[in-house]
């Protein structure tokens, strides 16, 4: 299955490409008064209003700044999602199109199901689903649904 790789706070991460609607350069973020800092703001994505989460802050790390390199992953919403690969990674996203702002994007690679390894206990994180070792790279495979629904259980938004 194909995964799109990206960096957040110097960590290499990946999401299945089937969950992605489009990856865009960050344009104008319209800030939302009263929203938590973890939300960069709203963007006008061809007539749709998309909420963008600062992935760095969501992980409790450094803020992802808008640069030439930084990108916004716009994820499909549940009703646009059709493919499921059996890993449970992309069975559910969010009822809305949500964007993740990341530091920079890398290439797209194929990862077989048997390459996926459980997250080691010492780095367990609600957003992490699997880890993968590809050559020298250590890749964390995310659970998009968890990040895209930030306020579901966690108190990041309070």
């Amino acid at each position, binding site marked *: 299955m194909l995964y799109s790789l990206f960096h957040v706070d110097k960590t290499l991460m990946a999401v299945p490409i089937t969950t992605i609607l489009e990856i865009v350069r960050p344009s104008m973020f319209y800030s939302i008064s009263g929203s938590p800092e973890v939300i960069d703001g709203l963007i006008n994505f061809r007539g749709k*209003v998309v909420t963008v989460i600062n992935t760095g802050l969501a992980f409790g790390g450094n803020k992802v700044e808008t640069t030439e390199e930084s990108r916004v992953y716009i994820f499909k919403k549940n009703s646009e999602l059709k493919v499921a690969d059996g890993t449970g990674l992309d069975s559910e996203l969010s009822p809305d199109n949500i964007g993740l702002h990341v530091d920079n994007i890398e290439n797209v690679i194929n990862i077989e199901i048997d390459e996926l390894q459980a997250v080691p206990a010492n780095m367990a994180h609600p957003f992490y689903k699997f880890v993968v070792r590809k050559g020298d790279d250590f890749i964390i495979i995310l659970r998009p649904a968890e990040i895209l629904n930030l306020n579901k259980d966690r108190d990041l938004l309070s």
Partner: protein
Amino acid sequence: MNIEDEVFKNFLAEMAERLIDLEQGLQDLEKEFSIDVINKLFRAVHTIKGGCGFFSLTKITELSHLFEDILMKIREGDLVFDVKMVPTFFAACDALKDMHESDDYGNSYDIKEICADLLSGSLSSQTFGSPEQQIKKILPVEIESQDKGSNLPKAELHNAQINLMPVDKSIESEPVKKDLEKSVSVDNDFTLEEVIKSIQKNSLDKNQPQNETIRVKVDLLNRLMELTGEIVVGRNQLLRQFADSDNKIALSSMAHLISDLQQVVLQTRMQPIGGTFTKFNRIVRDLSKQVNKQIKLVVKGEETELDRSIIESLSDPLTHLIRNCCDHGIESSQLRISNGKDPTGTIWLEAKNERGQVSITIEDNGAGIDTEKVKLKALKTGLITSVQAASMSDIEAANLIFNPGLSTSDAITSLSGRGVGMDVVKSTVEKLGGALDLETKSGLGAKITFYLPTTLAIMSSLIVRIGDNRFAIPHSELREVILIRPGDELQIEKIMDHTVYRLRGNLIPILKMSEITGDPSQDSIGGDHSVFLVLHSGTNQFGLIVDSIEHTEEIVIKPLPRILNKLTYYAGSSILGDSDVAMVLSANGISQNQSLHLQELDSLFLNNKSFEDMQLMDMQEKQDLLVFRCGPDEQLAIPLSLVFKIERIDVDQIDKIANKHFINLGDKNILLIYLDQYLDLKPFPSDSKYFFVITTKIDRFEVGIVASSIEESFHARLVLDTPPISGKIILGITKLYDRITLILDLFSLAEQVSPESFKAIDFSGKSTNKNQLLVVDDTPFFRHLEKKYFESVGFKVTLASNGREALELLLEKPSKYDLVVSDIVMPIMDGYELVKNMKINSLLMKIPVVALTSFSEAEHHEKALAAGFDGYAIKTNKETILKAVNRFLIEE
């Protein structure tokens, strides 16, 4: 199509919707138990039961009643929910569905098994009471409904009648007809012919499509609406982009077409509300028989158009309210007659367009809401504390009925009494972006008003800038825009931590964006002038400070993503014509967030200020003053409300008798008084050719105050300082038009000028200990003056600005006050109500109450005495006031 038919068809459609709700709810329940889901299920089943009971679909009613009972027990905590119950619930839901779809609506359906399943499921996991008790609780219902169920099954009836139809006229043989009528219906009084007709119609409607309309999927209409919305936004963008272009004929004509398109698409969804209204005629007619009361329904404004989806959502809440009116609101004929009312109760149902919104009013002239009962119930359920209950106003208490689980009906009937209605009504209206208002007068009736947007799709909005951001505010929530110029700041004041503004006598809270969002960086930058918007949600009003107003635009509101749904002060977001994204503010959300209940603010304002502060505040309330001069320097003022007439007089007209000056005005000789004789003023200019005479409204004070010039009338807030000039006749000094101005106390002046008629009466209270007075008046000026009178003769005076406040003071220390002197016309609680409340309280009933008003007609006098006042005096006559007061204290 006759009304019955339409109602029935509507109901079937509605039932289908409720069944979908039910199924969804059950699916949610399967995943995770929550009381919200139970509530949702309960409402769905309740609606189904109510409707089917109404149409005598006995089997469905029976099953849904049982189902509802079980859900209710879960909701109340009498029954512990167990996941094992869910399959039975699903089975019940399926059974209801089957019955709904069957030709005879389940009347020939066998529901014994499913009922037994439901019962056993609920019994196995019950926690309170023995199984036998539980069965007893549920069984009578079942037995009763089975009795009713002995009707001829509808299917049979259906066939029978189709066969009978050709020989309709010939079934005059009484036994057959009677028999049939008996079997047709127990509750309803339809004649056989009506039933035959309606059944025939039903079968016709089922088979024949209508010619003039086609059915369109709602999804398709929604999509059309959405696309049109986007096109409108696109058009706005294009118009902006090419605003400077010379040749834009094609663009303009397309822009027009798009406007037309938008109108038409909006119309496809608009329907007159009449269709929904008509069904209430029948509902009221039938309910009035069922509850054995005489009720008539008056419907107005049926042609008012609303978005189809809004009308659909309104059907439920309106039905609830109409039922409530019939069941609780309207009294029985006997009771109405004994209360001196028309034996027939009336319910008014009216829709109208108002300020770009549609308002729907349901009003009855019944008993009104029993606020004491509501409070009691709310106390029992732990919704409020006893402290809260004691300080609640009637309206606040009445509003409690919108809380889930609160019903004042003692008995649970199939009509109402389970407390489902009102919370659903409120949440439905709010979900539609509307608001609602409740008014109730004990013994006179209740009135509920919905304020609704006409459409949910495209909203005309005002775009404003606050700090770095732009916001859109739908016009339907905007009342007015107010510009505060430098110098107007006086109208803004701080009370506790609230900034408030006095807008035409109303106290409205003013908010900054930072107070709403809690984000100080988002505040307006301010400047030497500020603008604020007055927003409203229902009757709640508040101001929001903005930096600038940009323009008006038609916007499509996109719902907030779920991730942001904690930010309830936003209604959503929108893409503006210049492709910027702006947040759309929700007045409803803000007002709920800030719990901006004006009453709360008012009581805060009243309770947390010491009396001294209050007095000061009160004197700062706006007053109308007449400003005049007696000489070149001193500026004087008196309350305009006490001025009777101003006349310009030539010096020659003065008659001098001894060393007093008189003038003949009308048919009276009026004594002129020169204020320099009473105050330390410069002498009146002797060289002037003419002057002005001010006559007052004060009783028997037939003197004219001489003024050298009349400046103007002044409407402003007063800040009164203690007079530096000695002399009783000065109330205080203030600065008007940059000049020190003396405010005169005309009553004291009258006393000084003619002591013989205004002599202070000996106050006998001095010798006793009875000297504690409570003075109640909403007009600050009079309140202040009254205090002064009473204190001048030795009373100790406590002030209250309305009946409610007075009552609170009285209840706090019932034995403190010897006498209450009260105005009649006051906001919040008037004098009549105050007296009524006092006379029914055993602690307060002995305290005499004297009415004090500006009316002198005998009619008012009688009315006051009838209402329970012990005495009556005219405000502008100090002597009679003191007399009236003294009488009661001496009599004691």
